[in-house]
């Protein structure tokens, strides 16, 4: 390979305060695009959160006007006439809350922001394998997000068939659903481009000495995640194309025969003739959708496990216990996650043989999750733990993910699932994993890697306020939902169960949950202040402030704008050699001889 004399970047290029918006628009550097992903996804996270707060008001006080709604929406808005939410608007908010949080916030934070930024650094690489593909991934993601958000402005509003877009409702719904499908196709393009880039980068751009078993666990989690995205998104692409055809050119792939809507049979105008629609299968969509969406569940948690593993080993000053078991467990988890999708469909009456099969695979898939969780817990044993903000968030991940995972077991067994599936129990189960678990890991990751990205440390006191208030409030929100779920309150009611007798004893919990959710919004203010203040005023840090061992800490903080490293590092050992007996310090970095 020819080597050019590297032109040293100017001070302005190394200083993120001089982060140029114009340069970022055309950049193909993984760090710039990682930051773009992070900022965009945090904005979408806040958007999804605000949408949820509107819904929570409606659930706590159904039929009561939202203070300030007329200023927000206009006094005679069709969505909130007189400040009171109409049911259609509630369902739009529900569908878009899920869609935005999964596809525009959490996955882009985990894979787009942390993955794109950190993986090349942890590999000792100058950039991703395909820098222009990295850029395509980001802009396609942003375009998808813009299409989705703009659909709120359509006359009929946004998509309202849930984030799962089940037909037949999604096919007879308004134009918002078409926007949903177009946005989804853009997100699929972005995800597949990102996944290919990630896999090739990890396999091809590892520096000398960085064998597979020396990869940081975070890189392993990103590798398995990328394979899940690569294999699971295309079938959803196929399903999206078919649903788009059902909506636009009147095919009936997902419409069964004999469908009657509002007292009239569904018909299509084909070649000047009116013919009844039908011949398709609504279940087909569910199979194709969940073939994506169950692996997607693991996409939502694997990179979080990877981040927690990095933070945990560093702050316990101990190697990960059972690193190889964690790696093999993660690979097994990835494979099994492709074989469990129909446990989302026990209510459809698939037949006992299929149900038994998916019940068995679902029980099996919990084993590798428990291996990883056990290994993380065991890594703490005997460690000299530093309880800083990133570590607090990483530690909180363990019980939160534990609760989320264990409450999933009754949903994997058809007998109990039939009772629980359409209740708040399900909402609660996956929010414990994705919000209490994954989002904790994301916040931990932000506090942990912020010094690497900006060259400045975040404020520890504000971080602790953020951590403790968020942890308590999250549990105030989600613990009562288990009670509501087990009481049988349906998760799809716009009035929170007001009209059902069995929901009456647990209705008052809605008010408590809503107040906790509003308080949770306030608890994020210390974080936002901390982020913005530390960006400008945080104390400067050197290259390796946490005394960590993986290769990203060999680069300057922030890394060189072009090529990351002054000279490409060489990996001499495994990723987490902490407290090695006989060494003079309690960490031995991968790059040290």
């Amino acid at each position, binding site marked *: *390979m020819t*080597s*050019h004399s*590297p*032109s040293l*970047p100017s001070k302005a*290029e190394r200083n993120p305060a001089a982060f140029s918006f114009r340069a970022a628009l055309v950049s*193909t*550097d993984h760090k710039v695009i990682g930051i773009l992903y992070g900022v965009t996804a945090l904005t979408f996270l806040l958007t999804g959160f605000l949408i949820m707060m509107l819904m929570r008001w409606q659930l706590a006080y159904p039929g009561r006007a939202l203070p300030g709604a007329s200023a927000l929406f206009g006094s005679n808005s069709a969505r909130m006439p007189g400040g009171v939410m109409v049911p259609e608007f509630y369902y739009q908010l529900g569908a878009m809350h899920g869609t935005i949080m999964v596809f525009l916030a959490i996955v882009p934070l985990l894979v787009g922001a942390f993955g794109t930024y950190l993986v090349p650094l942890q590999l000792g*690489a*100058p*950039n991703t*394998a*395909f*820098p222009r*593909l990295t850029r395509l991934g980001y802009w396609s993601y942003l375009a998808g997000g813009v299409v989705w958000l703009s659909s709120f402005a359509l006359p009929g509003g946004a998509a309202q068939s849930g984030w799962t877009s089940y037909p037949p409702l999604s096919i007879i719904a308004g134009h918002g659903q078409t926007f949903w499908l177009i946005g989804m196709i853009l997100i699929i393009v972005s995800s*597949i481009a990102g*996944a*290919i*880039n990630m*896999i*090739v980068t990890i*396999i*091809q*751009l590892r520096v000398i000495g960085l064998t597979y078993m020396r990869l940081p666990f975070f890189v392993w989690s990103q590798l398995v995640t990328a394979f899940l995205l*690569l*294999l*699971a*998104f*295309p*079938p*959803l*692409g*196929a*399903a999206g*194309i*078919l649903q788009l*055809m059902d909506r636009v*050119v*009147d*095919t*009936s*792939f997902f419409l069964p025969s004999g469908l009657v809507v509002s007292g009239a049979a569904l018909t*299509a105008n*084909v*070649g*000047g*003739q009116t*013919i009844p*629609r039908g*011949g*398709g*299968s609504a279940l*087909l969509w569910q*199979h*194709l959708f969940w*073939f994506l969406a169950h692996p997607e569940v693991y996409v939502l948690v694997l990179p979080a496990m990877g981040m927690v593993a990095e933070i945990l080993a560093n702050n316990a000053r101990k190697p990960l216990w059972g690193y190889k078991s964690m790696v093999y467990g993660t690979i097994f988890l990835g494979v099994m996650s492709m074989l469990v999708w129909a446990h989302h469909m026990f209510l459809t009456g698939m037949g006992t043989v299929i149900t038994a099969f998916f019940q068995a695979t679902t029980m099996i898939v919990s084993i590798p999750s428990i291996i990883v969780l056990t290994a993380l817990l065991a890594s703490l044993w005997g460690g000299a733990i530093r309880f800083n903000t990133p570590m607090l968030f990483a530690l909180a991940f363990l019980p939160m993910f534990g609760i989320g995972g264990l409450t999933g077991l009754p949903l994997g067994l058809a007998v109990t699932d039939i009772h629980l599936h359409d209740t708040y129990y399900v909402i609660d189960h996956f929010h414990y994993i994705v919000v209490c678990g994954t989002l904790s890991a994301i916040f931990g990751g932000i506090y942990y890697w912020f010094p690497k990205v900006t060259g400045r440390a975040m404020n520890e006191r504000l971080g602790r306020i953020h951590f403790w208030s968020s942890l308590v409030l999250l549990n105030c929100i989600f613990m009562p939902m288990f009670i509501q779920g087990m009481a049988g309150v349906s998760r799809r009611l716009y009035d929170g169960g007001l009209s059902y007798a069995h929901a009456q004893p647990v209705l008052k919990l809605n008010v408590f949950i809503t107040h906790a959710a509003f308080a949770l919004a306030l608890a994020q203010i210390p974080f936002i202040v901390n982020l913005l203040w530390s960006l400008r005023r945080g104390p400067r840090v050197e290259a390796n402030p946490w005394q960590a061992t993986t290769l990203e800490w060999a680069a300057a903080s922030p890394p060189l*704008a*072009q090529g*990351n490293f002054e000279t490409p590092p060489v990996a001499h050992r495994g990723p987490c050699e902490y407290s090695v007996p006989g060494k003079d310090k309690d960490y031995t970095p991968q790059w040290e001889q």
Partner: protein
Amino acid sequence: MTTPRPPEIPYSVTPRPDTGFTNAQLGMGLFLVADLMLFGGLLSSYVLLRVNAGVWPPDQHHPVAALGALKTGLLFLIVAATNAARHGKSSPPRPLFFWLTALAALAFLATTGAEYAKALSQGMAPGVNTYIGMFYALTAVHALHVLAGLVATLSIPILAVPLGKTDPLRLASRRSVTAMYWYFLTAVWFVIFAVLYLA
């Protein structure tokens, strides 16, 4: 202000010794796996709709097998021309065969367009039944892939061959990943041809 030269990405054109691949080859391989899942999703939908249907085909509408056979022939031509364009390390590239590949791809798209126009004029719209719907879905997705292959192939004589005068390795890499793509599209077409036109 001059922007600093972007860093050289390792193994862009030479294979990494321990994996045996260039980045582009591995990337295209992974893309084709993803694409296989896309066509796999569409084809399994076809299978599910077909086994659920009482009679198949549901009515008298049927795609014209001769046009399908013509499209199969054009894909053979594409693969043959792509293979003929292969060049050694010392021998110069042969732009003629890239143009030939592009021409065959263009003919494929024109055939598809004519096929759709004829079908629509006879009342064979996508909404007639799920069989015809799947016919449009599969052939249109495949034709969009051919269009992308056409653009990629044209980029070689227009952009890459002038580049190849200084960098034959990069040109060879482009040719080989484009060829991988055409082989894949041809293989997928065999399945589409069999299940749709010969059904």
